[in-house]
């Protein structure tokens, strides 16, 4: 075992959430060590659909809606900065996004959800409800089964893989360290500092941030916190590359910057199983073909499953340890949408700054009596 490597902050978890925080801390001048478990870990960041999504998030919890709005608004500058630092085009586009509806009941549900959200907020919450022909004017190629859509003007999408690569490269350029193959086995707190033991080394820092996705469940009690997160599987198919035909993201179908069309997704309670299931893939594909009939003749080249990191109410946990000052837990299931605000306001808090007002409610204790809803 090597001697403990010292840094200002250790971030545990090399996915989108951990990398966003590590980058945000490094750009504030902190020395950062980012510990990544390895390719045998469940890697939500590699299976993500890639939406930067606002519409529908935070019903009943206006703080979450405001936090989401803040991040979506910060995304253009965040992406420009990362591209300027790394030369990597993140393929960010925020032209507004559609939630296509295949029944009148679904469309009516969108109306209730989104107007309720708008009424709960004291800020602008731009969305429109469109019938079939109004949807088709903005989004050609929709099928007859699409009765209409909700259109959120702030919605967008990004390449999650390019984002992850850019964050890790920018972290390294700013002097941060990425240590891979580091499964954390113990976290000790001595004399105001943390000593993190992994299967192959030891790392020391004054602060430690747990951003290990599903791994946070076991890590949090090591620093006097709780992270009652559970897996929820989503499956995605991706097509051959096509010339651009779909210029807006939709909640279930989006065309990537390189031309492939991603078809999502499922919400399955199947434990720690990230494989694909043929019946679920068939359901996803047939829904996508009802939405865009031209996809019926397109070749699918790949399909995968990945595990969302879910709390019982679907909302994040952002919490500082009182028993182990300097330790924090961060978990959410919208690591892409929230990346911009994680790299900015949240990183500032984790580095010793003030806590962003929006996140005060997101403590683990609220979850003790919550029934699982998997709401967004």
């Amino acid at each position: 075992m090597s001697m403990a490597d010292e840094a200002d902050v250790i971030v545990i978890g090399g996915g989108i959430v951990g990398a966003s925080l590590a980058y945000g801390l490094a750009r504030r001048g902190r020395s950062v060590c980012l510990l990544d478990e390895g390719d045998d870990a469940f890697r939500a960041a590699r299976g993500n659909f890639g939406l930067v999504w606002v519409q529908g998030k935070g019903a009943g919890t206006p703080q979450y809606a405001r936090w989401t709005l803040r991040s979506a608004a910060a995304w253009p500058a965040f992406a420009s900065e990362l591209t300027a630092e790394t030369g990597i085009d993140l393929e960010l586009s925020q032209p507004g996004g559609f939630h296509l509806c295949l029944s009148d009941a679904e469309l009516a549900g969108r109306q209730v959800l989104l107007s309720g959200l708008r009424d709960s907020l004291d800020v602008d919450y731009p969305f429109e409800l469109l019938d079939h022909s109004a949807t088709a004017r903005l989004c050609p190629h929709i099928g007859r089964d699409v009765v209409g859509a909700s259109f959120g003007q702030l919605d967008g999408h990004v390449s999650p893989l390019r984002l992850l690569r850019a964050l890790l490269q920018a972290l390294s350029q700013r002097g941060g360290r990425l240590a891979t193959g580091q499964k954390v086995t113990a976290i000790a707190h001595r004399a105001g500092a943390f000593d993190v033991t992994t299967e192959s080394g030891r790392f020391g820092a004054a602060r430690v941030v747990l951003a290990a996705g599903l791994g946070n469940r076991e890590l949090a009690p090591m620093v006097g916190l709780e992270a009652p997160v559970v897996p929820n599987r989503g499956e995605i198919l991706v097509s051959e590359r096509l010339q651009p035909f779909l210029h807006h993201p939709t909640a279930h179908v989006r065309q990537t910057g390189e031309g492939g069309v991603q078809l999502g997704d499922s919400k399955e309670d199947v434990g720690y199983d990230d494989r694909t299931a043929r019946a679920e893939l068939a359901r996803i594909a047939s829904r996508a073909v009802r939405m865009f009939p031209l996809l019926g003749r397109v070749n699918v080249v790949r399909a995968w499953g990945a595990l969302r990191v879910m709390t019982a109410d679907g909302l994040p946990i952002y919490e500082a340890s009182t028993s182990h000052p300097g330790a924090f837990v961060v978990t959410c299931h919208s690591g892409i949408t929230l990346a911009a605000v994680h790299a900015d306001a949240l990183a500032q808090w984790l580095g010793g700054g003030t806590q962003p007002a929006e996140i005060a409610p997101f403590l683990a204790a609220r979850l003790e009596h919550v029934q699982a809803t998997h709401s967004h």
Partner: protein
Amino acid sequence: MFKRLTPTEGAPVDVEVDGERVTARAGESVAAALLNAGRVPLRHTPISGAPRAPVCMMGVCFECLVEIDGMPNVQACMVPVRRGMRIRTQHETRRVEVDDAR
């Protein structure tokens, strides 16, 4: 560049490649027929535009994608030639909404 090791094996099979007649041999794959006819590259890649030709000839590398009878991005090494088959080499990204109008 390529020549058949058994030039007389298999009955002649006429196929169409980019609108021109090419004589293949029964039992060989589309990829083999294209290589024998000197029809390389089979495609240019969608992102960088790099030329591509078959590498593995056994269904693994996905370099030999061509359009066969109107279906783009088919692995040429995995499809035997058939009389009258219409094969197109691919030099731009598939345009799916144009297929709609066909």
